[in-house]
């Protein structure tokens, strides 16, 4: 196995946002390579994807009166696709069995009037969410040995804490009309053509369809500006294009990455 790995967004996310199971696996996997490289594109995807959900939920907790209402917003937004799993997990979230308020005795509650259990629960949830988000964001460039493939058009703006307690993660995309990656990408027409062909081996889903469209656009109309939305649609193809030949792509999403990586003579690995 190669001693160098390019880290994709799924591994970055697990390493930063999950303290148990997959998080441990991701962090352990990172230590197994001598060199680990994180492309800035993964940071961009992380901020615009998983982290954004957490920021949204944190802000929901800040602005709703009850923890239950904030959790209910997850259901209302249809964030999860699995209906059965959704109801069980949402109920467990509503119950928030581990919260610190469960250890409050009646004597203690009498000593600190005005702090009902619901408020304690909401306040605690807000604090751990804020902690989780800000710790993840500030560690993003520290999980690998190197951060590579800088994107000159992407402002990797810091998260802001507003005076009203909400978090501001904007901007999550690039403000330019034409992505800085277009030029280097169109200089590799063979690689683009191989990736386009490899899309046929990817699972048929909207994401694949959009990726195929943008790859085709780069091949057929290379001078056409590559918008921020187009850049995001390329997704996993970017990791294949940015991965050095002596490295593997470390991902939890082998199904989507493998056909693209193989098309360019690369291989993928997943955390054990």
């Amino acid at each position: 196995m190669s001693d160098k790995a390019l880290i994709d967004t799924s591994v970055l996310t697990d390493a930063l946002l999950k303290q148990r199971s997959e998080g441990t696996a991701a962090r352990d996997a990172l230590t197994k390579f001598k060199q680990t490289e994180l492309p800035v594109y993964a940071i961009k995807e992380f901020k615009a994807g998983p982290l954004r959900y957490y920021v949204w939920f944190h802000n929901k907790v800040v602005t709703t009166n009850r923890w239950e209402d904030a959790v209910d917003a997850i259901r209302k937004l249809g964030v999860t696709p699995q209906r059965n799993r959704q109801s069980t997990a949402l109920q467990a979230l509503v119950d928030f069995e581990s919260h610190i308020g469960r250890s409050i005795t009646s004597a203690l509650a009498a000593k600190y009037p005005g702090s009902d259990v619901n408020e304690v629960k909401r306040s605690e949830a807000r604090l751990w969410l804020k902690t989780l988000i800000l710790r993840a964001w500030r560690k993003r460039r520290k999980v690998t040995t190197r951060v590579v493939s800088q994107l000159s058009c992407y402002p990797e703006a810091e998260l802001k804490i507003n005076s009203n307690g909400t978090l501001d993660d904007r901007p999550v995309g690039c403000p330019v009309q034409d992505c800085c990656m277009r030029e280097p990408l169109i200089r590799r027409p063979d690689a683009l053509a191989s990736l386009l062909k490899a899309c046929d081996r990817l699972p048929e889903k909207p994401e694949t369809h959009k990726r195929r469209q943008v790859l085709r656009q780069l091949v057929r109309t290379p001078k056409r500006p590559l918008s921020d939305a187009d850049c995001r649609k390329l997704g996993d193809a970017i990791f294949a294009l940015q991965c050095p030949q002596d490295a593997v792509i470390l991902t939890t999403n082998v199904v989507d990455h493998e056909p693209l990586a193989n098309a360019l003579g690369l291989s993928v690995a997943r955390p054990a």
Partner: protein
Amino acid sequence: MVETSQLAVANVIDLNERRGTYVPPTRNIEVEVRSYGIEDVRIARRDVQIEDLYAGDTPTAQLINRARQLLAEAEDFSVNAQRMLSEGDGVGADNEITLLQANLPELFFCRSLSEGLGAVTVALHHALTNRNGSPLTSDQIFAVRTACQKLHSNPFAPFTDALDLIDGLADAGLVTDPPEAELLSDFFVR
């Protein structure tokens, strides 16, 4: 409002000490006393404890004093636990940590003093609860002790300082997130 400062300058008029102000997070405060109405300026130095600056009968002062009391106890519990563990008294060490853990809900009621205090208290609560009864290692007790010491010396810790302390707990192998964080990641991380 002064948040962090090594030097507090107080203009004391008629030498009537003003209380109820925000306290800089230092144990020793250099106080410059300027007298008005006379020509000379005298510089006076004395050691001032945080508790000295607050009248004990205001709700904020009571909260500060209680928080510092709880944090002092937490520090003692963790120091004792370290000592007991080094002496081979695993049961004693674990009991000290359990006593520390039992004080955390009350400490959480003092969270209005600073977000940092609230965040570390929550992290400590989950770090200790997530052990499911297993005793802490020496490194973990050290991380807990460091967190308690820092908060005791500065209960007004800003959030960024709290993140450092929580990193210390996590680096020692403690899981500072509640189990519900895993459920949330099932929704938000695909």
